[in-house]
């Protein structure tokens, strides 16, 4: 399926959308499909410093736990509180209401892919 072109992607299946110094982070459609029904989302508190590639949070499906990695360094400005009571939003709307955290970016993003490159990456990984 086509990925939104208004954001960038990581090889660990997060997306990041940068607006000025603020970056919104979530997981991709492919990631939520692989996880299955999300039942619990653990996100960092505001003020926490995230390092690029560091663990930003954890998403638990019925069967498994999966880590979310920070696509770039920054301070956590907000976490999506709605996921506390509605973790299924990650499945239903991973690119919208299922967003995870907002960061105040302190470093430039690196190693990110645009939508076309991410789709090629998924194809090479054998994911459809």
């Amino acid at each position, binding site marked *: 399926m086509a990925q939104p072109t208004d954001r960038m992607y990581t090889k660990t299946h997060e997306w990041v959308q940068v607006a000025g110094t603020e970056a919104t982070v979530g997981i991709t459609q492919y990631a939520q499909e692989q996880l*299955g029904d999300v039942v*619990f989302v*653990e996100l960092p508190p505001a003020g926490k410093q995230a390092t690029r590639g560091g663990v930003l949070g954890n998403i*638990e*499906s*019925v*069967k498994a*736990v999966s880590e979310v990695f920070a696509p770039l360094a920054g301070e956590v400005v907000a976490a999506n509180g709605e996921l*506390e009571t509605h973790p299924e939003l990650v499945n239903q709307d991973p690119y919208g209401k299922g967003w995870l955290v907002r960061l105040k970016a302190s470093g430039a993003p690196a190693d990110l892919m645009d939508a076309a490159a991410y789709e090629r990456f998924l194809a090479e990984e054998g994911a459809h």
Partner: protein
Amino acid sequence: MTQTTLKRTPLYQCHVEAKARIVPFAGYEMPVQYTGVLEEHRVVRTSVGLFDVSHMGEIDVVGRRALDFVQLVTCNDASKLAVGRAQYSGLMTPRGTFVDDLLVHKVDDARYLLVVNAANKDKDYAYLCAQAAGFDGADVIDRSDDYAQIAVQGPRALETLQKLTQVNLSEIKYYRFVEGSVEKVATLIARTGYTGEDGFEVYVAPTEAPHIWHALLAAGRDAGIAPAGLGARDTLRFEACMPLYGNDIDDTTTPYEAGLGWIVKLEKGGFLGREALMRQQGAGIRRKLVGFEMVGRGIARHGHAIWSEGKKVGTVTSGTHAPTLGKALGMGYVPVELAQVGTPLEIEIRDQRVAARVVEMPFYRRARTS
């Protein structure tokens, strides 16, 4: 995971056609989910779901002393079984721990059908053969490749299966079975299951399994039947607190510790593990399998440490979000003095200790209508 060739059940193609996600499990390529674990779980609790459980092992004990042999290797009392009855039991080590848990079906005086866990089948068969080597009058036969097994589970399982058979299913009481036709195919129909719901397990020749599978899906269409995978099978059995071998019980745990003392019949006579179990019963157990619910936010998982008052006191054996109950629950072994309902515990989840408390088991019990 070791790189061995994975086997496929006779229903593999049905799963591929249904777009199931296939995973390796117990040496088989098995469907873990079709549409999603939560939806499949809900369908089984509220209507009817269909499981391919062909990976389970079937082992026959045959011969004039078949009963004596079953009595020797299992802890429950198989002499209480009439023909057409099934019994939950344990295959025991001499230490009184589980080689496996299993169902013993009395087919006739000279034949007992043991249904064992897929992951343990080869181990069980070898163990049984070793015991049978010095035993006159009973033979052990691995029949696993002769049977496919389909579980039809849920409150509407009976009406669904009834459409395909002349057998009066309402006359088959819980933990009983009959030989009868389904779709004109010879089967063994047992009123057993691993979901906490009413339901049946249908044993059939592998070549006939796809036909029966499709016929069941058609028969249950009005009820909203759906195939359900290993994911839902696990959450369903978990809510009902039915133990999973390798998680909640294994060859280091005894039936008494696991809360399964009701399957140990010390008075039946000699059996493997009896002396060890007698000693444990006399001395009392030191640890016990308990259920707990999370008080703080988090989901306990198999392998997480259990803490109490600053000390590590045990390990989580199973844990997940319980879909029907809508909360995070778990099971694990703790010292008996911490086993009372209400006792506060802490579960170590990713370096943090999260509050939990002991609750009653089973977590879920269906409302019985019959």
